[in-house]
């Protein structure tokens, strides 16, 4: 589903990603962990073309992202993304937030888009909020809308960049629960998170990144209980 080869990314002279290679299978849930500034967000943003790779190859959802001939907008229809700050469209209602992509990008009729959106909002536990505006919702509710908004495009892969980091502790659970349901239903997911419980319970594989490189990757149990590298050990010691 995702195939990354020797991905490099620099901002000016500052090299942030220093050669990332990895592979994500269909229906696999990969959790990315690592210290602040290690390049996790940059890596994720490269996967849907929000950042252009400096060099290397990314194949995702059957398309070569790094091929200049690839239609990036076509590709993004297959790759959903959920942001730390939710980024709901402030001027649109909850229902419109979820339908605007299908309506304007996929040219789906409004009634059909509304029907799908209501289903998705029900799925993330937000029935009755259709007419509200984002700033009337709690952080946890907003993040669940953001997930529904991505799902409405019918993606093959979902990318999550610290989806619970901006939430009050009591709202973290409801968002993780939605993500867990998605994972069980077979969604291919790449999740940057500090929620080790989620990584352990839902993740199939954990990638530990540091300083722009993948230091170690393994099944959660293996990585958490028996890390091989010193850098992984000292990172885990700090957060567990």
């Amino acid at each position: 589903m995702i195939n990354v080869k020797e991905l490099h990314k620099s901002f000016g002279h500052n090299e942030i990603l220093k050669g990332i290679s990895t592979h994500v299978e269909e229906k696999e849930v990969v959790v990315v962990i690592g210290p602040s500034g290690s390049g996790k967000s940059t890596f994720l943003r490269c996967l849907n073309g929000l950042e252009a790779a400096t060099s290397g190859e990314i194949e995702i959802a059957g398309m070569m992202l790094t091929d200049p001939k690839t239609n990036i907008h076509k590709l993004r229809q297959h790759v959903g993304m959920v942001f730390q700050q939710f980024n709901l469209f402030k001027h649109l209602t909850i229902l419109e937030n979820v339908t605007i992509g299908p309506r304007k990008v996929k040219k789906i009729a409004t009634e059909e888009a509304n029907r799908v959106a209501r289903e998705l909002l029900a799925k993330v536990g937000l029935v009755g909020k259709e007419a509200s505006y984002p700033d009337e919702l709690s952080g946890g509710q907003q993040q669940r809308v953001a997930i529904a908004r991505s799902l409405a495009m019918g993606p093959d892969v979902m990318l999550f960049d610290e989806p619970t980091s901006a939430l009050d502790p009591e709202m973290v659970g409801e968002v993780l629960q939605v993500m867990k349901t998605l994972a069980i239903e077979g969604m291919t997911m790449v999740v940057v998170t500090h929620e080790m419980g989620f990584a352990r319970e839902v993740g199939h594989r954990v990638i530990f990144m540091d300083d722009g490189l993948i230091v170690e990757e393994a099944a959660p149990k293996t990585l958490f209980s028996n890390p091989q590298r010193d850098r992984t050990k000292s990172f885990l010691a700090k957060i567990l």
Partner: protein
Amino acid sequence: MDPIRQNLPVLLDGLRLTIQYSVVAIILMVVIGLVAALMRLSKVALLRWIATAYVEIFRSTPLLVQLFFIVLGLPAILPVNRWFGQLTYPILAAAFTLSLNEGAYVTEIVRAGILGVDRGQKEAAQSIAMNGFQTMRYIVLPQAFKRMIPPLVNQAAQTIKDTSLLAPVGIVELVYKGQIVIAQTFASFAIWGLIAALYFILIFSLSKFSSYLERRLQVDKR
């Protein structure tokens, strides 16, 4: 009070023309400002360059000089009067020059409005596969527009005042009519006072309308 009562219809006719020029210029300045702002933010260097040059030129020269140059100067080297008509050219040229001048300021208002929209909004739009146009049209501009309303109303008031500069290049509007009335009646004090009052009413109602709009947006502040 007699000269006022006698000449009020003439002055109101001038006011009507002033309002017409204002409406045309305000509509055009928004269109021009929007296009030029998008050009200034474009990826294409040439478009950016053209828009920047336009803004700088119009902001760094007096409107009155621009009007003289285009309305009276241009016919000296180009047969524009023949192309557009002896009577039509000055009106078109004056309205267009005024719109271009105000549009230069609107460009900066629109640009600031667009840049003021949180970057995350644009990224979220991109992440649901919107292209550049869709992102602008459905996400960025609607949010930018709300924060642009107060400065735009301000600029509209400026535009109304600036239409008074059309009189020196021979365009009939409120000031022009006033000068004719004064030439006949010598009631300089009363007529200029009345003209000032008419502008005041026009612009004061606009600013009242603006604060009403702002209050409305405060109520549903999205």
